[in-house]
């Protein structure tokens, strides 16, 4: 089944796992995602494919521990299996013909930005990566990103690593110096994507964002992932997850994503208190 063959903590709340899923590994392209279920009682959650190893038939995903499912996922060790691992879902990122791009990753969004940067880099494009974090101790994928781009700019809110400032600060600088980029890719918290778009727009550089709405099946069935693009309803799972950042209604997405937040926090406490983080129904 879907066995975990590698596991690595990237920081206190972000974990990388490599999972055996040959059919998905064979097909997956940058920008696509999978849906997994930890066990029989688990929810289905979407995670972007961070990397694939076609030879060994494995797929890498990176997740942040934000709620019950990711917490349970983090409990699994190498050798254990996931109940379900479905994909590759969504459309691959449209990066053909791009010669010069800026890829902006915010926090754990770097895990999603990384495969796109890598794919662009492999296409021979100039790729400038701006990776932003709150502070030094949560920086992830620095080496991987550096290997997959032309210039790597690390930004931290508190200045403990790289330069002090937000990703938008650096983006503004790069675009002011040279606005001939073909594309800006922004992936991270919704608010960060919103501001990235606002920063890039005056320079007229097309800006692509990868959206992360609530989702169940990932095949267009539940409609939970509906987002408004240019005033039109789209389903992120089958129409996305990448969209033209200029056209996205970010405020609506932020509101919809907040729906289960209170419950998630409550569940997270609940599972820790009752089971020490381990499910004990059996």
């Amino acid at each position, binding site marked *: 089944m879907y066995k975990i063959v590698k596991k690595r903590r990237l920081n206190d709340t972000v974990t990388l796992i490599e999972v055996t899923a040959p059919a998905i590994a064979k097909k997956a392209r940058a920008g696509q995602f999978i849906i997994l279920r930890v066990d029989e*009682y688990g929810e*289905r959650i979407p995670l972007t494919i961070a990397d694939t190893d076609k030879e060994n038939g494995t797929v890498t995903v990176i997740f942040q521990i934000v709620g019950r499912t990711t917490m349970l996922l983090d409990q699994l060790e190498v050798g254990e299996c996931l109940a*379900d691992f479905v994909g590759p879902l969504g459309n691959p990122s449209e990066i053909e013909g791009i010669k010069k791009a800026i890829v902006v990753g915010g926090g754990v969004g770097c895990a999603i930005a990384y495969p796109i940067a890598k794919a662009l880099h492999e296409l021979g494009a100039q790729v400038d990566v701006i990776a932003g974090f709150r502070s030094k101790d949560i920086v992830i994928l620095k080496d991987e990103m550096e290997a997959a781009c032309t210039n790597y700019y690390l930004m931290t809110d508190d200045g403990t690593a790289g330069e002090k400032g937000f990703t938008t600060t650096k983006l503004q600088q790069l675009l002011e110096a040279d606005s001939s980029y073909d594309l800006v890719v922004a992936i991270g918290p919704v608010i960060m994507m919103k501001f990235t778009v606002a920063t890039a727009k005056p320079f007229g550089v097309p800006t692509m964002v990868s959206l992360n709405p609530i989702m169940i099946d990932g095949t267009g069935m539940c409609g939970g992932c*509906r987002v408004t693009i240019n005033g039109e309803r789209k389903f992120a799972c089958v129409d996305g997850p990448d969209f033209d950042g200029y056209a996205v209604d970010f405020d609506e997405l932020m509101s919809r994503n*907040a729906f289960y937040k209170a419950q998630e926090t409550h569940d997270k406490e609940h599972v820790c208190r009752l089971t020490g983080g381990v499910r004990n129904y059996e």
Partner: protein
Amino acid sequence: MNNSTVKTPIPEQEPLVRNKNFEEVALGYTEEQALLEADRCIGCKNPLCISGCPVEVRIPEFISKIKEHDYEGAYTVINSTNSLPAVCGRVCPQETQCEQKCIRGVKGDPVGIGRLERFAADWHSAHQSSDHKPAEIKKNGHRVAVVGSGPAGLTCAGDLARAGCKVTVFEALHVAGGVLMYGIPEFRLPKAVVQKEVNGLRDLGVEFSCDSVIGKTFTVDELFADGYEAVFIGSGAGLPSFMNIEGESLQGVYSANEYLTRINLMKAYKDEYDTPRPAGGTVAVVGGGNVAMDAARCAMRVGADKVYIIYRRSMEELPARKEEVHHAVEEQIEFRLLNNPVKIYGDEKGRVNKIECIRMELGEPDDSGRRRPVPVEGSNFFLDVDTVIMALGTSPNPLIKNTTSGLDTNRKGCIIADDDGRTSREGVFAGGDVVTGAATVILAMGAGKKSAAAILKYLGVD
């Protein structure tokens, strides 16, 4: 001969008890009740009932077996043309099919064919020995891929396997059963019943490959390259419709698909599952079909204080089965008929708190033959609600269409297929909701059956 003009009643849970649990509503006939009802069948020489059944169950024959107390024999008769007797006995709209044609229906109630079918299926299930294995089937060496494990796919797979084909069913979700698992609620169709039917197909040698999204994990072309000689597409109509009114993206607005999937497939009503339990409070379901009834009755069961069905026409035009409407009314679902939502409002956090509707009146008949609902100017009013569920129908999702060259679809995205399921692409057959748009379980089964026959013909199997 039982000359009663009324159907033998089927025991049911009390409405105000059952609207708080997910146990089955109708409990099924006892042996005595089944015998009593079977005795109402005249056993017509030229039975009309069979022509009303999309899978042509030999109805008088199975009922005569029940009369003879040969319940397993009755099941065998049904199962010889119907892969899913326990499902059909529960969810088929018999009143517009076999029972509508029953001669006893001319004066009084028709024979309770559906209830008898369920009795035979449940009797079989309860008395089947655990080491029971079906008779050995002679293999014909042909491999067929079935896409989707809903009623169309299961029926097609069953008929092909019985003819000796090696069949693999590909399912996108994590369990087989399609709409029978994610859509129809436990209290109408227990999931254990569905899984028993699926396991029956496994016993026939059918393989199920779950977590496999055709159009993504594998394409139709890859299935052929893999050695499948024919492909049946029964992937259903999954893409939910919305009204396109303001406020549909607020928190607490669901498609019926999402709401039902959370409850039925993801078991939100069971504490041991991680899926959050949907909020209680006041729930408005928009639409008047079976899916709307299912969503409303689920909402009541997960703890809503009040549940409205908002439908723009009158009781006469409600597309849901009479029995479902009757059950919903009994379970204290409040019908707001001739009402139509115009806008949904939310609080400062973006959570739904009310819905604005307008009253409607019926005008001249429209293309569908039903009287067209017309808004009454200035009749707008508000309902305080915490959840809104849109049950407005579905259309096929585009994954297969977009990845299969040479497969013609119509403007609604439905695959174009002839009566036998043949599509524009050689070796590719399709049936069920993916062809017709959202319809019923039994119609999908009928299409799966016809396609299986056409596939056998295509493969040159007698």
